[in-house]
């Protein structure tokens, strides 16, 4: 009796243990099930009006969830912290599954094959008409070292901005179409008071980021910053000297550009709006929407035109933001589905309208939204001349950083502001640039 009871108790304990084990296994399985159902983490920077952008993106994501059953957790990353966020991601910090990203070459270079942007070559066939549907300049921003990383969805293409009022005042019919006309126009548009102080500058090369203004001018002179493999600096040449000499003459010989244009306190947009600046050589598309919405009283007093032609070509500064996948994700397939969904015409149209961002998709740029104002048509036309601002070296963004200390900034400052010998400045910059590029090409 006693032994039976003991045996029964033992059996009960075994059954109880087995049941507990089964319950635990069930719970674990449920846990795994829950993990599988975890939403795709998607990060995006804000564009244009934050609320409008967020609402549009959320609507598109809800439509995606309704169509596929895949939940998406959207997080908006403020631009003020975007750079440090992506730098952290590229170093192995917390990352989403997929995101709206930029500077593919740099962040891929930093993250290597461990962290950061992940190639999605296996899914390239999901976009069979990509080359036909998208402007070619934007596609170079999503391909690096032979790998395909995602879909471009916005383009920063930069035409010239001119004051219509100033042109009329000077009897000029249209914006300048080449470098010589820029000089002539700028001279005619510069105004001085009785003391010789300039009350309106004729021209500025670009926005506050001075190195970004040099980039298209150097291209237009026929130059290229580095070799195709991204290993050799190629700025010590006649094209760079010609570019810097032309810029130098605009400042010091023709005196039509503010010599303080490289200082952080210089604000060309404020100068343009207040009538102290007549032309800005290379402006981001959002200047158009900002001038339209924030300064309606100026409507009709400004216009955009495609970038003037240089000695060799009309290459225009262009850079694309893209949707891509991050290394470390276990939701690559879901992410690709999401990107595939967002990159359809209707979705890209709505996002382009919500953000006022130029779309790299031809059909969107052919829509009424991008044709209802002359400046919008100019942006579409400029895309044909767009040349990617990214270069095949991860160190590129450090080279053109808009602050003292970067190679291109220092070269421009020495040649254009401090007026040092251009030959020597360019040669020294070439050496510095090569040293910096060797940091990444040693890998």
């Amino acid at each position, binding site marked *: 009796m006693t032994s039976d009871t003991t045996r029964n108790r033992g059996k009960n304990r075994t059954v109880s243990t087995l049941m507990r084990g089964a319950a635990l296994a069930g719970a674990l399985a449920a846990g795994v099930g829950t993990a599988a159902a975890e939403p795709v983490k998607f990060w995006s920077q804000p564009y244009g009006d934050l609320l409008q952008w967020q609402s549009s993106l959320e609507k598109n994501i809800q439509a995606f969830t309704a169509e596929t059953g895949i939940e998406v957790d959207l997080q908006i990353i403020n631009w003020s912290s975007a750079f440090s966020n992506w730098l952290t991601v590229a170093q192995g910090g917390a990352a989403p599954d997929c995101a709206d990203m930029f500077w593919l070459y740099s962040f891929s270079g*930093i993250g290597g094959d461990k962290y950061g942007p992940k190639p999605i070559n296996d899914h390239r066939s999901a976009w069979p008409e990509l080359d036909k549907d998208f402007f070619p300049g934007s596609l170079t921003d999503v391909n690096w070292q032979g790998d395909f990383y995602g879909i471009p969805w916005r383009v920063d293409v930069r035409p010239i901005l001119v004051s219509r009022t100033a042109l009329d005042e000077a009897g000029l019919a249209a914006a300048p179409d080449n470098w010589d006309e820029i000089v002539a126009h700028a001279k005619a548009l510069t105004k001085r008071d009785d003391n*010789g102080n300039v009350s309106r500058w004729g021209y500025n090369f670009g926005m506050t980021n001075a190195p970004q203004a040099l980039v298209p001018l150097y291209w237009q002179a026929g130059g290229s910053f580095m070799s195709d493999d991204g290993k050799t600096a190629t700025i010590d040449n006649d094209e760079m000297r010609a570019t810097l000499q032309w810029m130098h003459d605009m400042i010091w010989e023709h005196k039509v550009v503010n010599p303080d244009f490289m200082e*952080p306190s210089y604000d060309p947009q404020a100068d343009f709006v207040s009538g102290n600046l007549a032309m800005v050589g290379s402006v981001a598309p959002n200047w158009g929407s900002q001038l339209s919405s924030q300064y309606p009283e100026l409507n009709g007093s400004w216009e955009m035109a495609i970038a003037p032609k240089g000695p060799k070509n009309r290459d225009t500064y262009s850079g694309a933001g893209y949707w891509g996948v991050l290394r470390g994700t276990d939701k690559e397939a879901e992410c690709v589905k999401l990107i595939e969904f967002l990159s359809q015409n209707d979705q890209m149209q709505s996002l382009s309208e919500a953000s006022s961002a130029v779309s790299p998709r031809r059909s969107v740029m052919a829509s009424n939204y991008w044709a209802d104002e002359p400046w919008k048509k100019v942006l579409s036309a400029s895309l044909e001349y767009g040349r990617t601002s990214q270069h095949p070296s991860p160190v590129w963004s450090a080279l053109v950083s808009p602050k*003292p200390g970067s190679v291109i900034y220092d070269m421009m*400052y020495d040649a254009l502001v401090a007026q040092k010998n251009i030959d020597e400045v360019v040669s020294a910059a070439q050496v510095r640039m090569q040293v910096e590029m060797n940091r990444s090409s040693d890998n």
Partner: protein
Amino acid sequence: MRRETLIFCYAMVAPALIFTILLGIYPMLASIRISFLEYDLLRVHTTGTPWVGFENYLRVFNDPKFLQTVVNTGIFTVLAVSGVISLGLLLSQVLNEDYRGRSVVRLLVCVPWFVPPVVASAIWMWLLNTDRSPINYLLMHWGLIDSNIRFLTDREAWGPFSVPMLSVTAVRIWNGLPFVVIFLLAGLQSIPRSLYEAAEMDGASILQKFRYVTLPLLGPVLGVLLMLLVMTGLGHFEINYIMTGGGPQNLTNTMAIYSYQQAFQNWRFDTAAAASGLILILTGIVCIYYIRGQLKKDVR
């Protein structure tokens, strides 16, 4: 002390101590460690972070731009500290007197304190913009100048001094003044009136009262202030970075900006950590002097 009391004291101090260790001491030690490694973001995934000893410090010291930032930081600190303390002493005396409207004046003096340095920098950037500065407009209107003063962009320098350096220093003084005034005002209010009355009976003038009563009794407050201001001066960043980015021609660059540029522009965390390490050493020296002074005083 009873054991329970001790435990209570430690429990009270523990949260602050934990936060200080996590957010202050640990990052500081990590930064010092990085300064002895090769930590190049562009190479870290291939070469790792090998130990390089003092190589980063040597690179920093061999960079003429860094040496200029050391001089700039010193000049900036001396000018800002002496300016803010001189003005603070003057204003705190004014605020310590009894007169109608004193509260309003006190409030006005404190206003710059309510403005974060980043916002203050943006406001002053506009006020000191060469072409749009209302200061230039007024000076021109009054016939005092015939061409605009380039407050933030003038490249002419007299040794380490330049108009941009003086401009950013003035903004720093403006922004830091309320803190100093409040500190000194508290110190002034703790000086017994009877001491001034005794000095008056001895026939002391206003200046003599200031020299022989106010200054000696404000000594401890001034010591703490001086230490805090020198330390913040040596690590100063935001006003210069926003208003001039360290330019023109490196004239307003400070060690902290140099460190930031190395880390977030050039992606060299190792060089940035070495530059920060030097700031740490300099502020450490200031602290040691102050603590030694305090200890000597306690022994006496």
